[in-house]
């Protein structure tokens, strides 16, 4: 599955199903079970029926009527804000550290007491 067509073309997997939604919704919209199910059925059908290596099946779902979300993705603007504000707006990714980033403090406590069952570390965390 993919929502980033140009990247998937570059990576060139054996088969793909393309869903033209904002990143973070590859398998559908939150809370919309019927849509999630349709997307998965179409994805499985692509998996089953694609015969040409590298083929990308475009699924027909549209996020919103006007697709205006596409204007806002990673777009530099031409106004005169400060360099710092501009950087913040253009690059809203969070800081990259070696510390686990829990969704909530309770998750950290649960992980500390459970000891991370099912976690597989392939290199030391300081590498």
């Amino acid at each position, binding site marked *: 599955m993919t929502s980033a067509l140009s990247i998937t073309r570059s990576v060139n997997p054996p088969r793909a199903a393309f869903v033209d939604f904002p990143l973070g*919704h590859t398998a*559908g919209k939150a809370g919309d079970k019927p849509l999630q199910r349709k997307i998965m059925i179409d994805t499985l059908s692509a998996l*089953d029926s694609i015969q040409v290596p590298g083929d990308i099946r475009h699924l027909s779902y549209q996020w919103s009527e006007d697709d205006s979300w596409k204007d806002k993705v990673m777009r530099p603007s031409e106004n005169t804000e400060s360099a710092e504000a501009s950087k913040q707006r253009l690059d809203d990714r969070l*800081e*990259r550290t070696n510390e686990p980033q829990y969704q909530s403090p309770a998750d950290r406590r649960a992980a500390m007491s459970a000891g991370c069952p099912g*976690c597989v570390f392939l290199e030391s965390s300081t590498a």
Partner: protein
Amino acid sequence: MSRPPVDYIERTRSQYQSLGYPPYQWVENELAPPFVPLSKPLHESRVGLIASGGIYRVGQFAFHFKDDVSYREIDSDTPMSDLRISHFAYDTADARRDPNVVFPLQTLRELAHVSRIRELANKAYTFMGGIYSSRKVRSLLAPALADRMVRDEVDVVVLVPV
């Protein structure tokens, strides 16, 4: 009206340029991809699930944001309410509200229930896809996950990046 897909390569290129970052190196595979026809119909197939949206289960460590190449095993009968998300490079609000949007575990369970697929493998696998070293993905993470797929004897795998 439907509009052309966002070209994330082009937008990342101009974003990096305006921020003064060195150009991002995309993975480019120009050889024909390895293609294996399905060995059996989907309704007879065991399906594996691998997702890169930074999903973990309560009791597991969250992902860190600096080329974390670890992965998590998640039992495929895990309640969706026990799933959490940590990822630095996409808006996780909807995924936190309904993890199926990046980790369609329940969706696939339900398709197994109505025999669209034979079954979901006992374990699904997750990692945090914001790894800037494609070398580490190629040499460590991808082979480890491929090995798990072989051991779990899956017939097909659904890969869900964000």
